[in-house]
C-alpha cells in the first residue's frame, strides 16, 4: 500500500474494521441511510467531510458481497478472494480510481463496479501486492464468510458475472429488507416482520421456503392474517427496494430499465 493510501487507511478506523473483518450484512445490522446515490456517497467518501467515513463504510458494505463473489467465481480460493476483495476496496475505493471513473462515466454503479473489479483482477501486479498485504489486514473468519452469503457452495460452476450480479442483487434485497425490519419494528409490528422474514426473505436468500400453515402455527396467528401481513409488508418492501435500486442509477428514469436488466442478468447463465 503506498504512503497516501496508508495514511487514508490509518485515518479511517471504521474502514479498517470493515476491511479486516469483512462486511457482514445481517438483517439486524444497523445500516446507514441509503438516501444518497452510490455516486454521491463515493464523492462524499473522498471529500474528507464529516460524513466521509460513514459514506465509505456504507458503500463498501454494499459492494463487498458482489466484489467477493466475482473474485471467488474467477477461480480464487476463499482466502485469496477475501484478500483480493480487501485489496480492491483499499486500492480502488481509497485510491479514488473508482470515484474518478464514476464522475467521468456516470451511469450505473453496477456496471462500473464490475468493470473495475475485472480490471483489478487482470492487473497481476496489484494481485501480487494484495496477497502480500494479507498478514497486516488479517483474514476474515469462517463465520463472517457465511454472513456474506454461502459463497463456497453457491459459486461452484457459476460465471464471475453471474456470481457478481447474484450478490449485487442480494445486497440490495438485504438492504431493503433491513430497512423494512427497522420500519416494522418501529411501528410495533414485529409479527409482520417475522412473517415476511419466514415467508419471503428466507426463500430469497437461502431457498428455504416455509408454508403459511407452518408460519401461522409458529407465530400463533391464522393463515389469512398471515397472508394479509405478507401483502402489507410486500408493498413496503417494494417501495424500499425501489429506493435502494434508485441509489445505483444516476437518472431515476432508468429505474424500470435497471430492474429489467437485473432480472435478465439473473436469468442468464
Amino acid at each position, binding site marked *: 500500500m503506498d504512503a497516501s493510501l496508508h495514511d487514508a487507511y490509518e485515518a479511517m478506523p471504521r474502514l479498517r474494521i470493515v476491511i479486516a473483518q469483512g462486511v457482514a450484512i445481517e438483517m439486524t445490522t444497523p445500516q446507514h441511510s441509503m438516501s444518497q446515490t452510490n455516486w454521491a456517497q463515493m464523492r462524499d467518501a473522498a471529500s474528507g467531510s464529516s460524513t466521509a467515513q460513514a459514506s465509505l463504510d456504507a458503500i463498501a458494505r454494499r459492494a463487498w458481497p458482489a466484489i467477493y463473489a466475482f473474485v471467488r467465481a474467477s477461480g480464487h480460493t476463499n482466502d485469496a478472494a477475501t484478500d483480493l476483495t480487501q485489496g480492491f476496496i483499499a486500492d480502488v475505493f481509497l485510491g479514488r480510481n473508482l470515484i474518478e471513473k464514476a464522475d467521468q462515466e456516470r451511469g450505473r454503479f453496477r456496471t462500473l463496479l464490475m468493470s473495475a473489479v475485472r480490471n483489478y483482477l487482470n492487473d497481476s501486479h496489484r494481485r501480487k501486492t494484495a496477497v502480500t498485504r494479507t498478514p497486516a489486514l488479517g483474514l476474515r473468519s469462517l463465520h463472517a464468510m457465511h454472513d456474506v452469503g454461502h459463497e463456497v457452495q453457491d459459486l461452484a460452476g457459476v460465471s464471475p458475472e453471474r456470481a457478481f450480479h447474484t450478490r449485487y442483487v442480494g445486497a440490495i434485497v438485504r438492504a431493503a429488507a433491513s430497512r423494512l425490519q427497522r420500519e416494522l419494528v418501529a411501528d410495533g409490528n414485529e409479527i409482520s416482520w417475522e412473517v415476511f422474514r419466514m415467508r419471503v426473505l428466507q426463500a430469497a436468500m437461502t431457498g428455504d*421456503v416455509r408454508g403459511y400453515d407452518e408460519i401461522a402455527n409458529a407465530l400463533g396467528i391464522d393463515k389469512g392474517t398471515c397472508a394479509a401481513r405478507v401483502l402489507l409488508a410486500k408493498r413496503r418492501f417494494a417501495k424500499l427496494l425501489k429506493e435502494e435500486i434508485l441509489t445505483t442509477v444516476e437518472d431515476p428514469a432508468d429505474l424500470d430499465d435497471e430492474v429489467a436488466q437485473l432480472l435478465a442478468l439473473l436469468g442468464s447463465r
Partner: protein
Amino acid sequence: MNHEPTPSTSPQGSSRDSAESLSDTLRWAFQLDASPALTGATWLAREIVPDASDAFEAITATTTSLAALRELKSAFKMLRSCGATTAERSLAARLYAATLAAALIRHRELITSQDPANLLRAFTELTDDDTMPDRVRDLAALAIDFVRNK
C-alpha cells in the same frame, strides 16, 4: 399478468440457484406495480385459494372449503383496516361480508360472532352495491333470507 404467489423454492433449497430465488423475489416485489389490475384483494385471495381467478371467485366457488373461507375472512378483515386506499378498504369490507355469506350458504356455518342485526346490515349493503358481481350479490341475498328465517 399471471399471479405469482410469494416466491417459492424447492423444499431442499440448495438445489435451487440463488439467482433464481432472487429473481423471483424481485418479480414478486414489483408484481402489483406491474399489473395495477391485480388488486391486493385478488393477490390475497390467490394466496389462500390458488386456483381462483379473483377474490370473488375464491369466495363464491362451491369448491372453496369452509377452512379457506375462514382464512379469507381473516385476510379481508385485516385488509379492511390496513388497506392502502379507501377504495381497497371498502372493497375488503364487502369481501369480508361476502365470505360470511358464503360460509352460511355453502356450509351452513356462521363464522363470525357478529349479531344478526349487524350481519343483516352488511349483507343488505352487499346486495345493494351494484359494483359487486351478481354472484356475490345473489349469495348475500340468500344469506339475508337464511338469517331472517333462522
